[in-house]
């Protein structure tokens, strides 16, 4: 393989194992302070419920999902741990991007596909992830990583099926990535 002898252009990131240790420490801190793990899709759900409550209050009042959610969140959907945490994520990622000079508007895509195709697939992937994370009670952060951190059986099952399915389908979508 002549390809493997060519120097590979690389953006600088920290050593992934060091990144993993730091992420593990953040997860421990979340459990120590708040008795719970990290999350992402839960904050997006809060935002969706808050939007529906505001835009279509009558609909929210008579639709089961919002009824259940609002009943269990007396102080409103946005006053939630995950919402504050997610605001932090946006700030933290922005800080890292600013410090290491990675702030830039761009559509990142393989040269073999158009940015239009990349964006269409990004939306499809988002829809699937949004739907799946609700059915599965949390996404890669909340269910898989945080669940595994506290040894939850559900966390391991979640991790296995997220990554297992993505591997099983990787061949069909290879053109988008390689």
């Amino acid at each position, binding site marked *: 393989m002549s390809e493997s002898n060519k120097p590979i252009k690389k953006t600088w990131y920290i050593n992934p194992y060091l990144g993993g240790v730091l992420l593990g420490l953040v997860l421990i801190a979340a459990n120590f302070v708040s008795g719970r793990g990290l999350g992402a899709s839960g904050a997006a759900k809060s935002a969706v419920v808050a939007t529906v409550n505001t835009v279509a209050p009558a609909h929210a009042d008579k639709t089961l999902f919002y009824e259940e959610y609002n009943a269990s969140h007396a102080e409103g959907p946005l006053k939630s741990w995950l919402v504050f945490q997610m605001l932090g994520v946006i700030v933290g990622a922005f800080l890292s991007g600013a410090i290491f000079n990675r702030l830039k508007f761009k559509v*990142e895509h393989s040269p073999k596909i158009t940015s239009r195709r990349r964006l269409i697939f990004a939306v499809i992937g988002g829809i699937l*992830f949004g739907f799946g994370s609700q059915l599965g009670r949390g996404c890669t952060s909340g269910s898989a990583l945080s669940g595994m951190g506290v040894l939850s059986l559900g966390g391991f099952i979640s991790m296995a099926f997220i990554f297992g399915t993505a591997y099983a389908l990787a061949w069909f979508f290879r053109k988008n990535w390689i």
Partner: protein
Amino acid sequence: MGPLINNNLISQNTNFFLAFLVGIGFGFVLEVSGFSSSRKLAGVFYGYDTVVLKVFFTAAIVAMVGLLFMSLFNWIDLDLVYINPTYLWSTIIGGAIMGAGFITGGFCPGTGFCAASIGKIDAIFFIGGLFLGILIFAEAYPMLEPLYKGSFKGSPTLPQALGLKDGVVVLGIIFVALGMFWAGEWAERKFPREEY
């Protein structure tokens, strides 16, 4: 001592403020590890970049071992920590749908927000889809409720399900992870790709 909120050592508002700080740490680590790039994230499925595998499993191991030791030293009461419940079929089907979302979208929700914060337009579109997907679930919820609330197994841990001690299972997971790290390093040498 911990968890601080459960033991009433901090107020709810302090808890929210600390959630914000935890989030800053979370977002910073994701971005600085390269999780703001869908190309790097998808790399784990083709072998050219296995940063996801390395960060994810290192973090899981550090958290498992750290929490077990903190429990041993009585720094944290693990009985008060939230253990994700197991609803078998909704977890399996939800996980499979998320996997399909991962390979098509190139992000998961956390990494999507992280990438959007540094200006990745594909991540902004992904998040648009994410909101739409949650809305679709919410509207279809009455139909999905039996699946969502069915096959409830309580909140067992993996060691409980296997009938083994926590430490033994964690040690086993560490060995599995080391094997995967080795495979990841091998794959990166075997299937290198130019950045784009």
